[in-house]
Structure formats: structure tokens, C-alpha cells
């Protein structure tokens, strides 16, 4: 650990020196780094797919869709928009302040820390880094030790492409994270669980370091089957894709559970079964299209959730597990008890509870009884229900009639609220996430108002009162002696 402490000290020192030198502030430098990231992904596509397969059993198409393609798009957007993003924004000042001017410029925080998660180890590492770099910071990445091949790949490959004096990668687990968190950073960006999020924020508090915490929660999916019966086939595919098609349900925005009216539950289940088969065949374990559970520990967690006898009794499809292969079959539950563990923690696995309600309107109250999730999904054409969902529930985001796809829309801020996180990124929001919005005001030395200065008297007080009310005409009268 001593060696690691020394490495961290040294890295920080170098990054701070580099930042102080001003090198990372040049737009040219930032663009060069972004181009290098794109090159790195292009050059190493196969290798990246390989490590994602090794760590998570991801199929290369899934890997490209969710990680590689996403990163390239993100870097490309940043490259093409950077010139716009760095332009100061003018502010309008009241006439009274004429000829003063005001503007806001985005300045980099300095030296920032990115701690990424194991489920999308490439994109959750590189995407925040893209934001940090676009904003002109130096950045240190610690990827998750639970995706060791991806972490090793990043540690080995990033230095070959990016400016090593400004962008660094450190590998390791909680003990390394602890060392990192003892230091003062200018910003910390964390993706992971709420439990660890609290630890990160408390550590950041010691140094008054601002944080962005991308956490998770139970993302509910409402199916208002009355209003969308025509599109049910598509809906079932979308939900299935959103549950099992992306890292086997181990995503912060995965469909966690479904809310549907009692009368539709069995039809829904009967529609889900053939879709699952169409995705993964008769033997999902061998399909090559279903990611595996990341570690034994997580497998055991899912196993525990499923082994609750009352939960077992609610299995209507799937349920088989293979600890050696870290495989959990796509599983559907019908009405597991609401006080069971599986209904009170983020599942983060390929198990889909269906909770039935008498009336779909009850879904609002149901969702409100739980911590605010990162996303709410609702399949409905009922405008009244849409309005109720929007105004009565709170979540990072709401997506109507699809799942997961809000992640791809980089004009939308991506982030949580309450237990699901604080801060946001993607697109321009990534740039802002790593920037301090500095206000700059310039006054004029040419004109001066005596009323600004002591000694105070009634005239000055009246003047200032009128000035504040922007009662310019009365001000003029006052100055001409025509007003008391």
C-alpha cells in the first residue's frame, strides 16, 4: 500500500503541475485528446470486445451498442461542439449598471477523479473522461476491480494514446479508492451504488469537493395495457430488450420491475415467454447473447433474493441458476411479496418481477412509496396518466413508450435525484459537469455616482432606492432637483 500511496501522490503532483502549466486549457489540446480516444476505440475494437466478453460475457454487438459505439459518438459530439461550448455567455445587465458588462465563462475545475463501475466498464470510464477532458481538466481514472480485464486494458492502453502527464489510470479496489479519497480533488465523478455514493460524498466533504454521483434504484415500468393494446408486441420486445438485452439486467437504468393491471398479467407473461425464446433460444446459457453475472458475490446475492421461499413460489418462468458459469436464467416473477428483499433493493440481474394492481392509476402511489429511481418507464397513450406520472412522481428521467433509450439522447441530461444520484452528464452536460461557471463583471472607471459612497444622507438614500426600483425617470428628476 505504501507504494500505491506514493504512486497516487506522484500522480496528483504531476497532474496538478500539468494543469497549472495551462496545457489542458487549450482547445487544441482537448481536441487532440478527444481524437485520440476515438482512435483508441477504433484501433482496439476487437480487444475491447474481448475484455468485455471476459469480464461480463457480453456479445460483441452488445459491447459495441452499449459501450464502444457510445463512446465514439460521445467523443465525436464533444469534438464538434467544443468550440461552441467554450464560448463565454454574455449576460444582460440592468441599465443602471451601464456601461458595465457581464459574462459567464466555463473554467475547468482542475484535477478530477473518475471512479467507474464494472457493468459498462469502458463507457462509464471513458464517457466521464470525455467530459473532464473537454472541460480542460486533468483526470485520473480508477475503473472497477470487478471488471479486471477492462480495467487492465484501460490502464495499459490509455497511456499509449493520451497525454500521460494529464490523464492517468490507476487500478485497484476499495483500498486504492480509500487512498484516492483521502486526497483533495477539484471534482469527483462516481458511478455506482448509493451505499458507496454516501461514502464518496462524505470523503469529498472533508475537502469541499463537488461531486456527481450516478447511482441507481429500482426503475419501474408501467404498462397501461388499455391504451397501448395495439402495440403490445413491440412493447414486450422493448421491455425484454431493456431487461435482458443489456448486461443481463445489470444496468442502472435496467427495467427493474413491471407494474400492470391484474387482468393483463397472464397475457403479459405469455407474451414475454416467446420473446425471451426468440432472443436467447431454448438454452439461453449457450446463446452467447446473454451477459453473465459479474462475480460470484453478485451471483450469490441474486441467489439469495431468489431463494426466499415466497419469491420462489412466485416464479412463473425461468429460475434456473449455474454458479460455476455465473448464469441466471431470464426469470419472471408474478407478485413476489412486497416486503421481500427482491422488491426492496435494486435487483441488478435478469429477474423481472411483475406486480399487479387493480387499476393502473395505483402505479403512481406505488412508485412514490419507493426511493426516487434513475428512470421511470411508462407505456401509455393516456395523456392524463402521462401528466400524472410527470407531475406526481420524481425520478432522474421519464421515458414514455420505450426503455433505456434516453441514455442515447445526448441532448437530455443523464443523472438521478434523491437516492438515484446528484448531478448529470452526457453531451453538453458532461462539459458543464466538469466546469466551474465563473461570473465575470467589468465596470467602468469612467463614470462614477456619488450616491454610491458615504457619508450617507437622505439624497443618496433616495437615489439608491429609485435606482434599485429602476425608476429612471424619477432618478433624473431627483438629480435635477425636481424631486425630493
Amino acid at each position, binding site marked *: 500500500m505504501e507504494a500505491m500511496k506514493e504512486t497516487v501522490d506522484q500522480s496528483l503532483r504531476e497532474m496538478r503541475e500539468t494543469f497549472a502549466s495551462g496545457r489542458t486549457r487549450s482547445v487544441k489540446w482537448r481536441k487532440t485528446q478527444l481524437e485520440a480516444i476515438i482512435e483508441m476505440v477504433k484501433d482496439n475494437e476487437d480487444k475491447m470486445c474481448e475484455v468485455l466478453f471476459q469480464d461480463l460475457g457480453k*456479445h460483441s*454487438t*452488445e459491447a*459495441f451498442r452499449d459501450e464502444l*459505439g457510445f463512446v465514439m*459518438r460521445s467523443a465525436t459530439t464533444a469534438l464538434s461542439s467544443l468550440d461552441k461550448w467554450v464560448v463565454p455567455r454574455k*449576460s*444582460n*445587465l*440592468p441599465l443602471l*449598471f451601464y456601461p*458595465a458588462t*457581464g459574462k*459567464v465563462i466555463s*473554467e475547468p475545475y482542475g484535477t478530477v477523479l473518475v471512479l467507474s463501475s464494472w457493468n459498462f466498464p469502458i463507457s462509464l470510464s471513458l464517457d466521464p473522461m470525455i467530459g473532464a477532458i473537454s472541460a480542460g481538466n486533468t483526470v485520473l481514472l480508477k475503473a472497477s476491480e470487478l471488471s479486471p480485464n477492462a480495467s487492465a486494458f484501460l490502464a495499459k492502453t490509455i497511456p499509449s494514446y493520451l497525454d500521460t502527464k494529464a490523464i492517468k489510470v490507476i487500478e485497484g479496489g476499495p483500498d486504492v479508492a480509500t487512498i484516492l479519497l483521502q486526497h483533495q480533488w*477539484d471534482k469527483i465523478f462516481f458511478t455506482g451504488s*448509493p451505499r458507496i455514493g454516501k461514502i464518496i*460524498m*462524505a470523503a*469529498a*466533504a*472533508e475537502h*469541499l469537493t463537488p461531486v456527481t454521483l450516478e*447511482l441507481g434504484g429500482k426503475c419501474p415500468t408501467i404498462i397501461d395495457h388499455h391504451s*397501448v393494446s395495439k402495440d403490445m408486441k*413491440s412493447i414486450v*420486445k422493448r421491455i425484454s430488450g431493456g431487461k435482458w438485452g443489456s448486461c443481463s439486467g445489470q444496468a442502472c437504468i435496467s427495467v427493474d420491475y413491471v407494474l400492470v393491471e391484474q387482468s393483463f398479467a397472464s397475457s403479459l407473461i405469455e407474451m414475454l415467454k416467446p420473446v425471451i425464446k426468440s432472443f436467447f433460444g431454448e438454452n439461453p446459457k449457450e*446463446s452467447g*447473447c*446473454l451477459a453473465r453475472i459479474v462475480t460470484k458475490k453478485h451471483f450469490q446475492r441474486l441467489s439469495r433474493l431468489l431463494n426466499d421461499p415466497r419469491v420462489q413460489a412466485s416464479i412463473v418462468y425461468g429460475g434456473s441458476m449455474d454458479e460455476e458459469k455465473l448464469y441466471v436464467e431470464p426469470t419472471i416473477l408474478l407478485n413476489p411479496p412486497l416486503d421481500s428483499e427482491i422488491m426492496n433493493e435494486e435487483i441488478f440481474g435478469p429477474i423481472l418481477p411483475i406486480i399487479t394492481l387493480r387499476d393502473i392509476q395505483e402505479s403512481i402511489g406505488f412508485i412514490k412509496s419507493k426511493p426516487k429511481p434513475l428512470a421511470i418507464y411508462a407505456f401509455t397513450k393516456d395523456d392524463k396518466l402521462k401528466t400524472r406520472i*410527470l407531475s406526481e412522481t*420524481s425520478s432522474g*428521467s*421519464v*421515458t*414514455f*413508450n*420505450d426503455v433505456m*433509450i434516453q441514455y442515447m*439522447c*445526448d*441532448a*437530455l*441530461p443523464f443523472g438521478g*435525484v*434523491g437516492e438515484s444520484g446528484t448531478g448529470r452528464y452526457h453531451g453538453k452536460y458532461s462539459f458543464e459537469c466538469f466546469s466551474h461557471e*465563473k*461570473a*465575470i*463583471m*467589468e465596470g467602468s*472607471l469612467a463614470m462614477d455616482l456619488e450616491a454610491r*459612497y*458615504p*457619508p*450617507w444622507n437622505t439624497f443618496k438614500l433616495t437615489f*439608491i*432606492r429609485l435606482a*434599485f*426600483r429602476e425608476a429612471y425617470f424619477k432618478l433624473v428628476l431627483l438629480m435635477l432637483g425636481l424631486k425630493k
Partner: protein
Amino acid sequence: MAKVFEAADASNLMTELRQSFDAGVTRGYEWRVSQLKKLLIICDNHEPEIVSALHDDLGKPELESSVYEVALLRNSIKLALKQLKNWMAPDKAKTSLTTFPASAQIVSEPLGVVLVISAWNYPFLLSIDPVIGAISAGNAVVLKPSELAPASSSLLSKLLEQYLDPSAVRVVEGAVTETTLLLEQKWDKIFYTGSSRIGRIIMTAAAKHLTPVVLELGGKSPVVIDSDTNLKITVKRIIAGKWGCNNGQACISPDYILTAKEYAPKVINAMKQELEAFYGKNPMESKDMSRIVNSNHFDRLSKILEEKEVSDKIVYGGQKDRDNLKIAPTILLDVPLDSLIMSEEIFGPLLPILTLNNLEECFDVIRSRPKPLAAYLFTQNQKLKERFAMTVSAGGIVVNDIAVHLSLPTLPFGGVGESGMGSYHGKFSFDAFSHKKAVLYKSFIGDAAIRYPPYSRGKLRLLKALVNNNLVEVFKVLLGLS
């Protein structure tokens, strides 16, 4: 006798406010407007009492109270009333080929039940201005004013209770005990104005519940004076911004001056002249300056003034009167960089001037210290202005003036690093207390098979084309031509 505030009180308070929020009391436009209008009535009808309370607590001159507290608040409320509909309206967001066909918007929603903890130096402004933001954004809010300004705290409690909706807006008076009890609750946001030391405690408490925070802290705001400036105006503005704003007890007070060695004597002479013009030959008798808030702070300032190698650097002022909690406007020249007065935010009527061989050195001096809430520069040199604005990191930068940016609703007011996080004023206040919820409306047209397993090379190619926004490639793959 005031009832003692206990743990059960804190939790009951939270339960009550949460019930109100969940019932939708605070979300409607009409409710928010009604509360803002009531705040305006408070400003319009109770100014004399406010001025009186501020005089009791701080010896604040009437003009400062009227202008820097009441008038600023009045403007803030009026702006919120005027703009609220605008602020509440969703923003449209662009969608792209990958999410086609869809429409997207960003909806502002209240965070829920929020806590505002304010400071003693501008007790009305720093209490009500954040509350304006909280209410505009549709939250229920608890205000904890500073106990170091007891008359103001008591008046705030009385007025807010009298005028505002008690089911959603409350005041809790008290000190460390009460604040600690409040901090144990799960708030949806905490807005704190005060010191960096307490800021850390607040954020640590907030971390337990993942509560986001805005921390408006402080620091040593430097003033760099270039020798090409209009010295008379420069000095007048510095004086008005330092001693004219609560006698140096403000978060953006000019803390110390940096100027070239040769220019310093001119600066000192000009300051002496204008100080006398403003406050007379006997500034201890002037009614135009606040007093030091209490004996603790008086003793703190005394100590840093009396430190060895500092006390002999006084070139103007230095008189003290503990009974009346007064310290004269005091200027010091070239105190040691590691002295107490140069190590902590002064927050009082002492102004050290540090001389440099070359004005360029100011950048290193400023950069070697924690980032302040404000940094000031007086110069006519365009290049220097640009370099300063770009390379000095501070909450805000003001060139050729002092403190005025505080009153501009179109500029975000907040710190960076040790001087804080988050910002407010104008729309930034509304945003500070809002969650910006992303909303995506997707249709059922166009369900691409490429989204779903089983995965194939063709699907991969199509995906790549989509990701690259490459329409031509998309069609080619779809038509089987690629």
C-alpha cells in the same frame, strides 16, 4: 419562554412538511406567487423593523440595511414574480437519429423539502433570498437563521410565521443543537451560507442521506491594483465595498490588496484621503459603518491585529473599542505572508496591502491560496483584464468595481473550491432548488430489429452506421447492399 427544540420536533417538522409537499400544496403556480407576494409585503410594510433589528444586531447603518438587504430582496422577489411562468416552463431538447422518432424535453420539478441555513452578516438577505429560490421552485422550506443575529432571527421568525403558509414554510431558531437536530433529517436539498469549516460539517451530514447541497462560503478575496487605474475611483469603490458593506464582514469583502511597490504609497495616500472624506477624522464616531458583530469576533480581530510583526505594519487606523465593539478602518502594509491576518478570511475592517516587485507576481500569490469567492482587478490594461479573467480561479471576477456583481440576477453567484459549490440569484436560484427531469416521448413506429438479440454481423453494421449518424450506410444495410 421559547419551547426547546428537540429531536422529536425536528422529525415532526419534517413529517408535516413532507405531507404538505406530497399533497401538492407547494407545486402550483398560484401558491408560489402568493408566497412571493407575501414576502414582498414583508419588505414593503416592515422595512423600519428590519432596519431596527439589523441595527440592534450589527449596528448596520440604515442605508446599508435598506439597500443591501431590503431593496435587493425586493428586486429578487419582483424578478421571480415576473419570470416564474417562464422558469417553470419545460425546455425542449433535440433528439437524434438513434432515438428517432421521439421528442424530448427537460421539466423543472421541485426537489421536495429543503433546508436553508443562513448567516449573521446579512441575516435578511441571506435568509430570504434562498427562500425565494426554494419557493419559486415549488419546495416546502425550513429556514434556520443565524443565532448570532438574534433580533433579526426573531423578527424573521415572527414575520414569516405571520405571512407565509405554515404548512410549507417554517422557521426554526437556534444554534448548534438545533442545527444538528435539523441536519439529522433527510432533506431534499440543503442551502448553506457561512464558513468553510461549517460547510464541511453540513456536507458530511448531507452525505448520510445523499442530500445535494449548495454551499456559499467565503475566502480571502484579493484586490489587484494596477498603476494605470483611475486611483480615486478605485479607492472609493474599495472603501465602499469594504467598510461600506457591513464593515468588512461580508463574504465578498475586499480582503487584501496586491499592488506594485512603487505604487503602494499612492494607494495608501488615496485611501487615507477618501476614508476621511467618507467617515471623517474620527471614524470611531461615524454612524456610517456597522460595528463588529460580537466580542468573539472582536477578540479574533484584535488578536490578528496584535500579532508580532503585524501590529507594526499598521499605516492607518488601528484604534479599538471593545465596549462598543468598534475597530477603526485599518490599513496595514506588507504584513508577513504567513501571519494570521494573511492565513484566514479577515471578515472585519482591516485591510492589508501587499507590495510586489512586479504586478505580474499577483497571479502566483493568488494561485498559492485557496480559491476565493471573488477576485478584483483595477486596471485599464485590456490584456491584463483578459489574463486575470481567464486564469484566476474564483467564484466570480469583478474588474474595476467591488461587490456589485452580487446584485446582478443574470450572473450566477457562488464559489469554487474552498469558497463553495453551487450558485444562485435570479434564475440560478430557481435552478438551485429544482430537479431538471429529462423526459423522452417515443413512438411505436420504427422498431429496429437490430436492438434485440440474437445478435448478428448485419445488426452490428447497422448499429455502427446509426451511431455514426450515417444515413447512407443505414439505408445500404437495410437494403442489404452493405
